[in-house]
């Protein structure tokens, strides 16, 4: 069974962390992943940096720009990850925009992911229908789970469609926004979380965007299976370096 599905069966709320590969330094990738697992993180999204990250706010944009300046490429990332399964057991997801994957070759990319032990992909600008028609078979051939986003504006019909195509979890974007930590959740958002919770979807939901601390993590996981922290973690690494990852994670969990 795919590690993501296994993890989703555990009787606990999941904490997933996003970081940008190649940031702050090009060779931080493996140690960040190892430290996150040791700190008790349940799942990791490894950000493949892109020059034009449309769905990201200033923090992740800046980390991507810096990662590219540091020389990060798809090939280098795969090379860094080649022995990752010797030391890391939690699910690993690559999150990246579609163009770099297209240039690598979608099938070659998926094959490489499988060889390394990557469990899933999140590609915000690969639309559901294109995935369904052109790429689903390839992803499945290499045992990869593709994760789709929904937002407060996504219609019920479309959520059902996305649910029918997904086979891991649904990434529930907390508000209509790009990535970037905000202050807490409003009623509007909790109503939306509840609405989705009541749809009895076959895939569990994990909330992302706007989760930055213990309070927002707890709030989000009241309604969902887990939560994803991105910008707040990238900001932490950017302010305090990569040696205090455990402190950050304990601050979220406790």
């Amino acid at each position, binding site marked *: 069974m795919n590690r993501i599905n296994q993890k989703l069966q555990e009787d606990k709320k999941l904490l997933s962390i996003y970081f940008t590969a190649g940031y702050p330094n090009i060779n931080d990738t493996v140690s960040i992943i190892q430290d996150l697992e040791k700190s008790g993180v349940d799942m990791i999204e490894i950000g493949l940096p892109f020059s*034009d990250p*449309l769905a990201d706010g200033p923090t992740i944009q800046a980390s991507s720009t810096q990662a590219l300046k540091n020389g990060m490429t798809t090939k280098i990332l795969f090379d860094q990850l080649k022995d990752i399964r010797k030391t890391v057991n939690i699910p690993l997801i690559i999150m990246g925009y579609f163009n770099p994957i297209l240039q690598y070759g979608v099938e070659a990319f998926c094959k490489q992911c499988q060889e390394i032990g990557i469990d899933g992909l999140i590609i915000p*600008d690969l639309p559901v229908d294109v995935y369904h028609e052109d790429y689903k078979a390839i992803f499945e051939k290499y045992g990869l789970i593709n994760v789709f986003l929904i937002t407060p504006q996504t219609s019920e019909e479309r959520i059902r469609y996305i649910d029918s195509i997904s086979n891991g979890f649904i990434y529930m974007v907390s508000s209509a926004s790009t990535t970037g930590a905000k202050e807490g959740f409003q009623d509007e958002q909790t109503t939306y979380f509840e609405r989705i919770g009541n749809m009895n979807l076959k895939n569990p939901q994990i909330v992302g965007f706007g989760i930055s601390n213990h309070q927002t993590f707890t709030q989000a996981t009241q309604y969902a299976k887990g939560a994803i922290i991105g910008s707040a973690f990238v900001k932490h690494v950017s302010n305090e370096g990569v040696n205090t990852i455990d402190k950050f994670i304990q601050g979220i969990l406790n």
Partner: protein
Amino acid sequence: MNYNVNEKGYYGEFGGAFIPEMLYPNVEELRQNYLKVMEEPEFKKEFNQLLKDYVGRPSPLYFAKRLSDKYNTKIYLKREDLNHTGAHKINNTIGQILMAKRLGKTRIIAETGAGQHGVATATVCALMGLECIVYMGEIDIARQAPNVARMKMLGATVVPAKSGSRTLKDATNEAIRDWINNPVNTHYIIGSAIGPHPYPDMVTRFQSVISEEIKLQLIEHEDRENPDYVVACIGGGSNAAGTYYHFLHEENVNIIAVEAAGLGVDSGESAATSVLGKEGIIHGCKTMLMQTEDGQITEPYSISAGLDYPGVGPMHAHLCKTGRAEFMAITDNDAMNAGLELCKLEGIIPAIESSHALAIFEHKTFKPDDVIVLSLSGRGDKDLQNYIDYFKI
């Protein structure tokens, strides 16, 4: 061969809507409504009325006699430079502002490079009393001060794009991010035939008034509807799309697309996407774009801010791939000289973008009885400082 968009939003293999889910409701709303709205008699009436009374259409089709004599062929200039605000951009912004109103939107966003599209958007927002926010690269703000001032005078807020390379591509990213963050009340007026479906097709249709008029005007001049050639410069490709539109399926009309070669196609400082680009995804569509081997979008270069874009619209990628259009790349130097030549021969100061199209006559020989229609997409007022610096006037 079909050169128009198909029902799935593709031109051959190019186009589509490669957008994050956050944008889906907005783009889908537009996709479901744009053709219906454009077909409404009331919409058509209002659009045509504004093009006539406010923009000053039809723009003349002018036989450039001295230019024609020099190159021993028959050159007609489609005078988009005489439109209100000085370029073809306003045809699209008039159409889209009416579309936005039909969709109940109250807030307008746009991206701009040189500021022409920003000015055209600020203008129609003033006309309709709608809030207007224009994203512009920090670097472009510094080098296009007069257009920044125009936008402000027209009541727009100009927001500097500080991410990435701080030029047009980043301004477009910022506008898209704004739209993600404002999904209900906002319409994004894209300024060229780019972006996710239905934008390339919608922009093309609004600009198609250019070729519609050419057909009628050419009958008066030449007693025929179709020229032998249509020529236009390509940034994202909106003036070109409008100039070609009604000739796309007329096999005897040759299409020439002129890109900016910058300092030379092989110089590393160029915007000649058809030569340097590869298939990929930029700003929500699959098309030809300049990128690294790793799929990172690269920064183009051209002296002309309006052609300084790392991609071309999907329709043009298709025209290129199928060989329907001939693509030519013109350097800064050749464009500047062609611009100055038009001043001296015809008394018209062209936008530097349009000067690229004019420069083809130095590189390609036409027959004496060939009828060529060239889109003079804009006037050179905005480029005076560039001309002054370049020629040390």
